[in-house]
């Protein structure tokens, strides 16, 4: 009787990987030798106990620690021009969604949902355009503008794309995700303005990352001029 063989069969049984023939083979070993039965009982009990291990809650300050250590200001690309898309950027975008959205939203926990911040600013006559970046990519084109009314900043999207585009808006340590800022179901040439929470600051910088299906398709940085 091969120790290696019946041991292997016992482990495979625990992992639910035995076929009928192997099960019959293991049964023969079990019937023939009480030590094999003892080994099987012990391993099954051990694995059951391990499987019941309860995951511990992480310490409450872990989120704040991670966030405090993250280079938040660098989360979106601090480049004025739109970057070309390649797989590395796609990976980075995927991670930004996974880490960025997860970390920034959940860790900060103070950023309001996009539906709470997307809205119409004051009457068009009172809205001033502070900065505009043209976007010309194969999968995304148009322009984005930083606008303000008497009190608040906003980002105006005038984008077209063959697929729905989401935007990550990073500003002052918060990142918001806004869905459908352009593309198949987005506003396209009609434009859409997202009002940013809080009061507009002088020389403020807003970083935008555009995503289609979780992949980065472009980025831009908008800057408010310094007030005099």
């Amino acid at each position: 009787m091969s120790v290696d063989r019946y041991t292997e069969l016992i482990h495979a049984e625990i992992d639910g990987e035995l076929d009928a023939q192997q099960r019959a083979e293991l049964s023969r070993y079990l019937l023939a030798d009480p030590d094999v039965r003892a080994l099987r009982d012990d391993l099954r009990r051990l694995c059951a106990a391990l499987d019941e291990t309860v995951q511990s809650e992480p310490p409450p300050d872990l989120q704040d620690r991670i966030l405090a250590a993250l280079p938040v200001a660098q989360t979106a690309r601090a480049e004025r021009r739109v970057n070309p898309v390649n797989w590395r950027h796609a990976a980075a975008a995927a991670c930004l969604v996974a880490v960025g959205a997860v970390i920034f939203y959940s860790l900060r926990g103070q950023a309001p949902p996009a539906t709470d911040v997307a809205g119409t600013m004051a009457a068009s006559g009172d809205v001033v355009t502070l900065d505009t970046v043209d976007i010309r990519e194969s999968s995304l084109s148009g322009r984005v503008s930083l606008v303000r009314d008497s009190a608040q900043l906003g980002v105006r999207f005038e984008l077209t794309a063959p697929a729905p585009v989401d935007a990550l808006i990073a500003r002052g340590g918060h990142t918001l995700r806004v869905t459908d800022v352009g593309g198949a179901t987005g506003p396209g040439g009609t434009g859409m303005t997202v009002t940013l929470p809080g009061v507009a600051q002088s020389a403020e910088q807003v970083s935008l990352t555009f995503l289609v299906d979780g992949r980065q398709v472009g980025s831009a940085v908008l800057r408010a001029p310094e007030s005099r």
Partner: protein
Amino acid sequence: MRYQKPVFNVALRLLRNPDDARDVAQTTFLKAFEHLDDYDPSFRFYSWLYRIAINESLTTRSARRPIQEVSDEEADESPGPDRCVEGEETRQAIEDALMKIRPELQAVVVLRHVMHLSYQDMSQILQVPEKTVKSRLYSARQLLREQLLHHATT
């Protein structure tokens, strides 16, 4: 945060120290963020995170005072199969035993039995063939069993 709890728990089971696990979890997310360009999108994102967490945990563990690990030979010399201890004592004994086996064996146990990952996922995370994952897991279970039997008779 979606991955915070599993990453923390991987580190906690490998280090058995909440403060160290918290530090490892923090480092894991920072490293992931800093090395986003290294992420290969053909693999699952959490596999990549777990790999970082395990590597960080093992680095932290190796920096500690060496733990007296149990070799296969020592385990084979343990007393015969009397039944193991029960309940909470079992859990404690298992945690003690887990800390005494080799780190690469410890990692497969944590990934399989605590994180409930498939062999395929474990293979990706540990960057070894599935056959090696199974072999390590079988060895780890055997060693843990021997440790628990030893515990029950002392």
